[in-house]
């Protein structure tokens, strides 16, 4: 019982981190229909830049994070402008963007490896100490992480609902000709979408970097989890991704507890298969 409750709590925490991981994927897919196979490395880059600023220049956490996110935003825009934009105009863009981002992911992963070396890094935790409620023990750091994740999700949904750019992104996601007719600059919105998604992804990398160890290759594992989550939640659905991430975080924690960590991947795969066969539009994605 004690173990189970603790596992559930830690599942909830990793689930909320996975949620931010999945958000970047689903934002890009929802608006531009590009499936970013270089997603994991983007998160890793965000985390590494923050780590570098923190530990080499001694920049405090907040400015380091902001600097890193500013870099991610411009990086996302550049990636769209100079690679995705031309590829999307060609036939067979659906798979060529997949292969391109895959190649770019490996390229960037190895650039990270060259620059920062293979040694494991970690971003220091935000707050020390732990919270004890009966037999349940949670680190204050993890409580802080959950809080930050909640704020990010709330901020994003407010952005999509109330800002002009956010509304334009939703409009483009729902109907490109409709968006053109009301005078939305599709290219600009696509570019901003990539910038936003890279920023969110970089941020999720920073958060993951404070909980797990960081190495240049860890992004692939994060990314595949992100894939399963967005498929579960329905491609392009933000709320679906959040719910799916929490569910999968819990499943992972329970599976690790009872079967051992080695079975986590096969279980993810089987779940993924079941969802794809029963509801290719995802458990929560209502529309196709």
């Amino acid at each position, binding site marked *: 019982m004690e173990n189970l409750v603790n596992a559930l709590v830690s599942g909830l925490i990793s689930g909320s981190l996975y949620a931010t991981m999945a958000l970047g994927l689903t934002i890009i897919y929802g608006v531009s229909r590009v499936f970013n196979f270089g997603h994991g490395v983007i998160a890793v880059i965000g985390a590494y830049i923050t780590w570098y600023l923190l530990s080499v220049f001694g920049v405090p956490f907040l400015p380091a994070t902001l600097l890193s996110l500013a870099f991610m935003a411009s990086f996302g825009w550049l990636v769209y402008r100079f690679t995705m934009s031309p590829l999307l105009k060609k036939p067979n863009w659906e798979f060529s963007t997949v292969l391109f981002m895959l190649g770019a992911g490996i390229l960037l992963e190895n650039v990270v490896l060259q620059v920062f070396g293979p040694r494991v890094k970690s971003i220091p935790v935000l707050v020390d100490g732990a919270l004890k409620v009966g037999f349940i023990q949670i680190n204050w750091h993890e409580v802080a992480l959950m809080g930050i994740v909640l704020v990010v999700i709330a901020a994003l949904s407010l952005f999509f609902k109330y800002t002009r750019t956010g*509304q334009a992104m939703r409009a483009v996601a729902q*109907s490109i000709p409709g968006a053109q007719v009301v005078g939305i600059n599709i290219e600009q919105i696509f570019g901003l979408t990539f910038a936003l998604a890279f920023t969110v992804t970089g941020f999720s990398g920073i958060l993951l970097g404070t909980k797990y160890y960081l190495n240049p290759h860890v992004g692939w594992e994060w990314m595949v989890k992100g894939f399963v989550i967005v498929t579960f939640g329905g491609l392009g659905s933000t709320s679906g991704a959040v719910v799916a991430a929490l569910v999968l975080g819990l499943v992972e924690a329970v599976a690790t507890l009872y079967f051992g960590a080695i079975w986590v991947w096969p279980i993810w795969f089987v779940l993924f298969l079941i969802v794809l066969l029963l509801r290719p539009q995802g458990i929560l994605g209502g*529309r196709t």
Partner: protein
Amino acid sequence: MLTVRELDCFYSDLQVLRGVSLDVGEGEVVALFGPNGHGKSTLLKAICGLQPPKRGSIRFKGEEIAGLPAHQIVERGLAYIPEERHLFSDMTVLENLYLGAYPRHARPVLKKNLEFVFHIFPRLAERRHQLCSTLSGGEARMVAIGRGLMSETSLLMVDEPSIGLSPGMKMAVFDAIRQIHCERGMTILIVEQEIQHALEMSDRIYLIKKGQIAFERRREEVQVDEIERAYF
């Protein structure tokens, strides 16, 4: 206000428009007739930048706009209301109308335009918080027209506004278009199958057949046989 000269337009390899020339003067209502599949919609799409023409010139308020991206054309004050509507179906009526005012010049007058839209379509005011995917065909058509009006436009191009609507709804839509013209003095270019209605409200008509302008007439000079012959 709008001058189209020698426009050639292709749908992949198929030539849809062949040297089309057309004028719309300030404050005019011009109707475009012709059998289906003969290039009416393509012409409107070419003008508003959704289907860039291959050759020819399109001048709007004296500026060349052929080949410009659609959003720049909208920013110059030209709105297109597509036959397919292309609404944002997971958004409310109000959100759709707000997005209509996306161009910068439209935002200061958003309130005024919204009032006007609700004035001509009181039904939309009642349903402002309803999702567009749950609207009836007629209501969705109203949203499409309303969204076009929100962009603070000086030329409105309407593509088959009455298509697929019940007779009562058709009347409502035509009344609204008439109102838009009378109360706002809007210049209108309309494509319509309901010839009788469109004829009544327009100053001039063009008839397109096989991608070419077959003839142009003032309303007084329209020969009904001529139109009939083109259709049958």
